[in-house]
Protein backbone atom coordinates (compact mmCIF):
# COMPACT_ATOMS: atom_id res chain seq x y z
CA UNK A 1 0.00 0.00 0.00
CA UNK A 2 1.32 3.39 -0.83
CA UNK A 3 1.57 5.62 2.18
CA UNK A 4 2.58 8.92 0.67
CA UNK A 5 -0.12 11.55 0.50
CA UNK A 6 1.05 12.62 -2.94
CA UNK A 7 0.19 9.34 -4.59
CA UNK A 8 -3.50 9.49 -5.38
CA UNK A 9 -5.78 7.34 -7.47
CA UNK A 10 -5.71 9.90 -10.23
CA UNK A 11 -1.96 9.60 -10.47
CA UNK A 12 -2.03 5.86 -10.83
CA UNK A 13 -4.85 6.03 -13.39
CA UNK A 14 -2.92 8.51 -15.48
CA UNK A 15 0.25 6.52 -15.13
CA UNK A 16 -1.37 3.27 -16.18
CA UNK A 17 -2.90 5.13 -19.11
CA UNK A 18 0.57 6.11 -20.24
CA UNK A 19 2.01 2.69 -19.60
CA UNK A 20 -0.77 1.01 -21.58
CA UNK A 21 1.42 1.72 -24.59
CA UNK A 22 3.88 -0.92 -23.46
CA UNK A 23 1.40 -3.66 -24.25
CA UNK A 24 1.14 -2.61 -27.90
CA UNK A 25 3.28 -4.28 -30.58
CA UNK A 26 5.33 -1.18 -31.28
CA UNK A 27 8.86 -0.21 -30.26
CA UNK A 28 9.41 1.55 -26.96
CA UNK A 29 8.26 5.20 -27.06
CA UNK A 30 10.80 7.93 -27.81
CA UNK A 31 8.62 11.01 -28.02
CA UNK A 32 5.70 11.71 -25.76
CA UNK A 33 2.96 14.20 -26.57
CA UNK A 34 1.08 14.34 -23.31
CA UNK A 35 -1.07 16.54 -21.08
CA UNK A 36 0.18 18.37 -17.97
CA UNK A 37 -1.66 15.91 -15.73
CA UNK A 38 0.17 13.00 -17.33
CA UNK A 39 3.49 14.73 -16.85
CA UNK A 40 2.89 15.47 -13.20
CA UNK A 41 1.72 11.89 -12.64
CA UNK A 42 4.91 10.62 -14.22
CA UNK A 43 7.21 12.91 -12.26
CA UNK A 44 5.38 12.25 -9.00
CA UNK A 45 5.66 8.51 -9.53
CA UNK A 46 9.37 8.63 -10.32
CA UNK A 47 10.18 10.86 -7.37
CA UNK A 48 8.05 8.75 -5.07
CA UNK A 49 9.80 5.59 -6.23
CA UNK A 50 13.17 7.25 -5.72
CA UNK A 51 12.20 8.35 -2.21
CA UNK A 52 11.13 4.85 -1.30
CA UNK A 53 14.08 3.00 -2.70
CA UNK A 54 17.09 5.09 -1.77
CA UNK A 55 18.45 6.59 1.47
CA UNK A 56 20.28 9.22 -0.53
CA UNK A 57 17.07 10.65 -1.96
CA UNK A 58 17.02 13.95 -0.06
CA UNK A 59 20.67 14.58 -0.85
CA UNK A 60 20.18 13.66 -4.49
CA UNK A 61 17.13 15.88 -4.77
CA UNK A 62 18.91 18.89 -3.30
CA UNK A 63 21.84 18.48 -5.67
CA UNK A 64 19.58 17.93 -8.64
CA UNK A 65 17.49 20.98 -7.85
CA UNK A 66 20.59 23.13 -7.39
CA UNK A 67 21.93 21.95 -10.73
CA UNK A 68 18.67 22.68 -12.52
CA UNK A 69 18.56 26.16 -11.02
CA UNK A 70 22.05 26.68 -12.38
CA UNK A 71 20.91 25.52 -15.79
CA UNK A 72 22.25 21.98 -15.97
CA UNK A 73 19.57 19.61 -17.13
CA UNK A 74 20.93 16.13 -17.58
CA UNK A 75 20.03 12.51 -17.04
CA UNK A 76 23.65 11.52 -16.65
CA UNK A 77 24.75 13.13 -13.43
CA UNK A 78 26.05 11.18 -10.47
CA UNK A 79 22.73 11.43 -8.64
CA UNK A 80 20.86 10.16 -11.65
CA UNK A 81 23.06 7.10 -11.74
CA UNK A 82 22.72 6.49 -8.01
CA UNK A 83 19.09 7.29 -7.39
CA UNK A 84 16.90 8.42 -10.25
CA UNK A 85 17.72 6.02 -13.06
CA UNK A 86 16.59 3.06 -11.02
CA UNK A 87 13.36 4.84 -10.14
CA UNK A 88 12.75 5.74 -13.77
CA UNK A 89 13.22 2.17 -14.88
CA UNK A 90 10.88 0.88 -12.18
CA UNK A 91 8.14 3.29 -13.18
CA UNK A 92 8.48 3.48 -16.95
CA UNK A 93 10.02 0.16 -17.86
CA UNK A 94 11.82 0.20 -21.15
CA UNK A 95 10.67 3.73 -21.80
CA UNK A 96 13.12 5.05 -19.23
CA UNK A 97 15.93 4.45 -21.68
CA UNK A 98 14.16 5.33 -24.89
CA UNK A 99 12.09 8.44 -24.15
CA UNK A 100 14.12 11.39 -25.41
CA UNK A 101 11.57 14.15 -25.66
CA UNK A 102 8.34 15.15 -23.99
CA UNK A 103 5.97 17.71 -25.47
CA UNK A 104 3.32 18.93 -23.07
CA UNK A 105 0.18 20.79 -24.10
CA UNK A 106 -3.43 21.15 -23.16
CA UNK A 107 -3.23 23.22 -20.03
CA UNK A 108 -0.97 24.93 -17.54
CA UNK A 109 2.11 23.00 -16.51
Amino acid at each position, binding site marked *: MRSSSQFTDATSTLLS*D*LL*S*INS*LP*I*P*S*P*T*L*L*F*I*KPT*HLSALTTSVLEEARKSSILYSLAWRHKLAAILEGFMTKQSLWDRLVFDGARVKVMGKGAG*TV*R*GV*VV*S*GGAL
Partner: protein
Amino acid sequence: MYHTEYLISDLALASYSIPSFVLTDLSLLSPVLETHPPSAIITHADFLPNLLELIYDSHDNDRHTVLVVGDIDTKKFSRTEKLKVLKWEDVERIGAQGDKPPISTPSKHHYLRCCPREPILSSDPQDVFTVSFFLTPSGDLQGTQLTHENLTAGVAGTRALLPLSSAMSPLDTIVSAFSLNTSYGRVIAYTAVYEGTNFATTMSTRLITPEGSEILQ
Protein backbone atom coordinates in the same frame (compact mmCIF):
# COMPACT_ATOMS: atom_id res chain seq x y z
CA MET B 1 -7.15 1.54 -31.74
CA TYR B 2 -8.00 1.80 -35.37
CA HIS B 3 -5.71 4.58 -36.45
CA THR B 4 -5.01 3.17 -39.90
CA GLU B 5 -8.65 3.18 -40.90
CA TYR B 6 -9.09 6.69 -39.48
CA LEU B 7 -6.12 8.09 -41.35
CA ILE B 8 -6.98 6.34 -44.60
CA SER B 9 -10.57 7.61 -44.49
CA ASP B 10 -9.39 11.11 -43.61
CA LEU B 11 -6.84 11.22 -46.40
CA ALA B 12 -9.25 9.73 -48.93
CA LEU B 13 -12.01 12.22 -48.17
CA ALA B 14 -9.58 15.12 -48.12
CA SER B 15 -7.97 14.23 -51.43
CA TYR B 16 -11.34 13.98 -53.18
CA SER B 17 -12.47 17.23 -51.53
CA ILE B 18 -15.34 15.55 -49.72
CA PRO B 19 -15.91 17.49 -46.47
CA SER B 20 -15.88 15.43 -43.32
CA PHE B 21 -17.27 16.05 -39.84
CA VAL B 22 -15.33 15.00 -36.79
CA LEU B 23 -16.78 14.89 -33.29
CA THR B 24 -14.69 15.37 -30.21
CA ASP B 25 -17.35 13.87 -28.01
CA LEU B 26 -20.03 11.24 -28.56
CA SER B 27 -22.67 13.41 -26.90
CA LEU B 28 -22.42 15.72 -29.90
CA LEU B 29 -23.67 13.04 -32.24
CA SER B 30 -27.39 13.72 -31.96
CA PRO B 31 -27.16 17.52 -32.29
CA VAL B 32 -24.91 17.16 -35.31
CA LEU B 33 -27.15 14.56 -36.94
CA GLU B 34 -30.08 16.94 -36.60
CA THR B 35 -28.42 20.12 -37.78
CA HIS B 36 -25.87 18.82 -40.29
CA PRO B 37 -27.00 15.39 -41.47
CA PRO B 38 -24.14 13.58 -43.21
CA SER B 39 -24.51 11.28 -46.18
CA ALA B 40 -22.30 8.62 -44.66
CA ILE B 41 -21.09 7.79 -41.17
CA ILE B 42 -17.91 5.92 -40.37
CA THR B 43 -17.96 4.24 -37.00
CA HIS B 44 -16.58 1.36 -34.99
CA ALA B 45 -18.56 -1.85 -34.58
CA ASP B 46 -18.74 -1.38 -30.81
CA PHE B 47 -20.75 1.79 -31.23
CA LEU B 48 -23.00 0.49 -34.00
CA PRO B 49 -26.10 -0.37 -31.89
CA ASN B 50 -26.12 3.07 -30.26
CA LEU B 51 -25.59 4.76 -33.58
CA LEU B 52 -28.46 2.91 -35.21
CA GLU B 53 -30.74 3.84 -32.33
CA LEU B 54 -29.82 7.49 -32.69
CA ILE B 55 -30.39 7.47 -36.43
CA TYR B 56 -33.79 5.86 -36.12
CA ASP B 57 -34.77 8.37 -33.47
CA SER B 58 -33.66 11.47 -35.31
CA HIS B 59 -34.12 11.08 -39.05
CA ASP B 60 -36.80 8.81 -40.35
CA ASN B 61 -36.76 9.82 -43.98
CA ASP B 62 -33.09 10.32 -44.76
CA ARG B 63 -31.05 7.51 -46.15
CA HIS B 64 -27.71 7.12 -44.42
CA THR B 65 -24.83 4.89 -45.30
CA VAL B 66 -22.92 3.51 -42.34
CA LEU B 67 -19.37 2.30 -42.76
CA VAL B 68 -18.29 0.01 -39.95
CA VAL B 69 -14.74 -0.70 -38.85
CA GLY B 70 -14.17 -3.88 -36.91
CA ASP B 71 -16.25 -7.02 -36.55
CA ILE B 72 -20.00 -6.56 -36.46
CA ASP B 73 -21.89 -8.61 -33.90
CA THR B 74 -24.92 -9.51 -36.02
CA LYS B 75 -26.88 -10.67 -32.98
CA LYS B 76 -27.05 -7.14 -31.67
CA PHE B 77 -28.72 -5.43 -34.60
CA SER B 78 -31.19 -6.45 -37.28
CA ARG B 79 -33.22 -3.57 -38.66
CA THR B 80 -31.44 -2.26 -41.72
CA GLU B 81 -34.21 -1.38 -44.17
CA LYS B 82 -33.54 2.32 -44.16
CA LEU B 83 -29.81 2.09 -43.80
CA LYS B 84 -27.00 0.74 -45.88
CA VAL B 85 -24.44 -0.82 -43.57
CA LEU B 86 -21.09 -1.59 -45.17
CA LYS B 87 -17.95 -3.11 -43.77
CA TRP B 88 -14.86 -0.94 -44.05
CA GLU B 89 -12.68 -3.83 -45.18
CA ASP B 90 -15.04 -4.66 -48.03
CA VAL B 91 -15.10 -1.07 -49.24
CA GLU B 92 -11.32 -0.87 -49.08
CA ARG B 93 -10.90 -4.13 -50.95
CA ILE B 94 -13.29 -3.14 -53.73
CA GLY B 95 -11.65 0.25 -54.01
CA ALA B 96 -8.17 -1.24 -54.21
CA GLN B 97 -9.19 -3.53 -57.06
CA GLY B 98 -10.97 -0.96 -59.21
CA ASP B 99 -9.56 1.77 -61.43
CA LYS B 100 -8.36 4.73 -59.51
CA PRO B 101 -10.02 7.95 -60.61
CA PRO B 102 -7.70 10.93 -60.78
CA ILE B 103 -7.19 12.67 -57.48
CA SER B 104 -7.36 16.42 -57.20
CA THR B 105 -4.16 17.84 -55.77
CA PRO B 106 -4.16 21.05 -53.77
CA SER B 107 -2.96 23.62 -56.23
CA LYS B 108 -3.70 27.18 -57.07
CA HIS B 109 -3.41 26.49 -60.79
CA HIS B 110 -5.79 24.49 -62.88
CA TYR B 111 -3.99 22.04 -65.10
CA LEU B 112 -4.99 19.18 -67.35
CA ARG B 113 -4.47 15.70 -66.05
CA CYS B 114 -3.94 12.93 -68.54
CA CYS B 115 -6.95 10.67 -69.16
CA PRO B 116 -9.46 12.22 -66.73
CA ARG B 117 -12.66 10.23 -66.50
CA GLU B 118 -14.66 13.14 -65.18
CA PRO B 119 -13.97 16.77 -64.43
CA ILE B 120 -12.06 17.12 -61.17
CA LEU B 121 -12.07 20.38 -59.30
CA SER B 122 -8.55 21.21 -58.26
CA SER B 123 -8.69 22.06 -54.61
CA ASP B 124 -7.16 25.10 -53.02
CA PRO B 125 -5.00 24.74 -49.91
CA GLN B 126 -7.44 27.15 -48.33
CA ASP B 127 -10.43 24.89 -48.99
CA VAL B 128 -12.14 23.55 -45.92
CA PHE B 129 -11.70 19.80 -45.79
CA THR B 130 -13.18 19.04 -42.40
CA VAL B 131 -15.30 20.52 -39.66
CA SER B 132 -14.45 19.61 -36.09
CA PHE B 133 -17.38 19.84 -33.67
CA PHE B 134 -16.76 20.43 -30.00
CA LEU B 135 -18.53 21.62 -26.87
CA THR B 136 -17.82 25.08 -25.51
CA PRO B 137 -17.37 25.42 -21.72
CA SER B 138 -20.95 26.69 -21.54
CA GLY B 139 -22.25 23.59 -23.27
CA ASP B 140 -22.99 24.95 -26.76
CA LEU B 141 -22.15 23.08 -29.92
CA GLN B 142 -19.44 24.76 -31.96
CA GLY B 143 -17.66 23.78 -35.12
CA THR B 144 -14.26 24.75 -36.45
CA GLN B 145 -13.55 24.59 -40.15
CA LEU B 146 -10.09 23.28 -40.92
CA THR B 147 -8.37 23.81 -44.23
CA HIS B 148 -5.61 21.82 -45.87
CA GLU B 149 -3.29 24.65 -44.94
CA ASN B 150 -4.20 24.46 -41.27
CA LEU B 151 -3.21 20.85 -40.98
CA THR B 152 -0.02 21.28 -42.97
CA ALA B 153 0.93 24.23 -40.78
CA GLY B 154 0.23 22.11 -37.72
CA VAL B 155 2.53 19.35 -38.92
CA ALA B 156 5.26 21.86 -39.77
CA GLY B 157 4.93 23.42 -36.33
CA THR B 158 5.01 20.09 -34.54
CA ARG B 159 8.13 19.01 -36.37
CA ALA B 160 9.77 22.29 -35.43
CA LEU B 161 9.22 21.64 -31.73
CA LEU B 162 12.28 19.45 -31.65
CA PRO B 163 15.71 20.98 -32.32
CA LEU B 164 17.33 20.22 -35.64
CA SER B 165 20.11 18.30 -33.90
CA SER B 166 17.62 15.75 -32.63
CA ALA B 167 14.86 15.96 -35.18
CA MET B 168 12.24 13.27 -35.72
CA SER B 169 13.17 10.29 -37.82
CA PRO B 170 11.68 6.89 -38.73
CA LEU B 171 13.51 5.46 -35.73
CA ASP B 172 11.23 7.32 -33.36
CA THR B 173 8.04 6.17 -31.72
CA ILE B 174 5.48 8.83 -30.95
CA VAL B 175 2.99 8.34 -28.15
CA SER B 176 0.12 10.79 -28.04
CA ALA B 177 -2.34 11.41 -25.24
CA PHE B 178 -4.56 13.40 -27.56
CA SER B 179 -7.51 11.85 -29.34
CA LEU B 180 -7.46 11.67 -33.11
CA ASN B 181 -10.82 13.42 -33.01
CA THR B 182 -9.17 16.64 -31.88
CA SER B 183 -7.27 18.88 -34.25
CA TYR B 184 -4.08 18.63 -32.27
CA GLY B 185 -4.31 14.87 -32.00
CA ARG B 186 -4.81 14.66 -35.74
CA VAL B 187 -1.85 16.91 -36.36
CA ILE B 188 0.38 14.70 -34.24
CA ALA B 189 -0.80 11.64 -36.14
CA TYR B 190 -0.02 13.29 -39.45
CA THR B 191 3.38 14.36 -38.18
CA ALA B 192 4.04 10.72 -37.42
CA VAL B 193 2.92 9.78 -40.93
CA TYR B 194 5.08 12.47 -42.49
CA GLU B 195 8.19 11.58 -40.53
CA GLY B 196 7.64 7.85 -40.83
CA THR B 197 7.71 7.23 -37.09
CA ASN B 198 5.77 4.60 -35.20
CA PHE B 199 2.65 5.98 -33.60
CA ALA B 200 0.24 5.08 -30.83
CA THR B 201 -2.30 6.83 -28.64
CA THR B 202 -3.02 6.11 -25.02
CA MET B 203 -6.15 4.33 -23.86
CA SER B 204 -7.73 7.51 -22.51
CA THR B 205 -8.10 8.91 -26.03
CA ARG B 206 -10.68 6.34 -27.01
CA LEU B 207 -14.13 7.73 -27.64
CA ILE B 208 -15.83 4.37 -28.00
CA THR B 209 -15.35 1.71 -25.36
CA PRO B 210 -16.09 -1.98 -25.87
CA GLU B 211 -19.24 -1.65 -23.80
CA GLY B 212 -20.48 0.68 -26.50
CA SER B 213 -22.91 2.63 -24.43
CA GLU B 214 -20.54 4.69 -22.37
CA ILE B 215 -19.75 8.18 -23.46
CA LEU B 216 -16.24 9.04 -22.30
CA GLN B 217 -15.43 12.45 -20.89
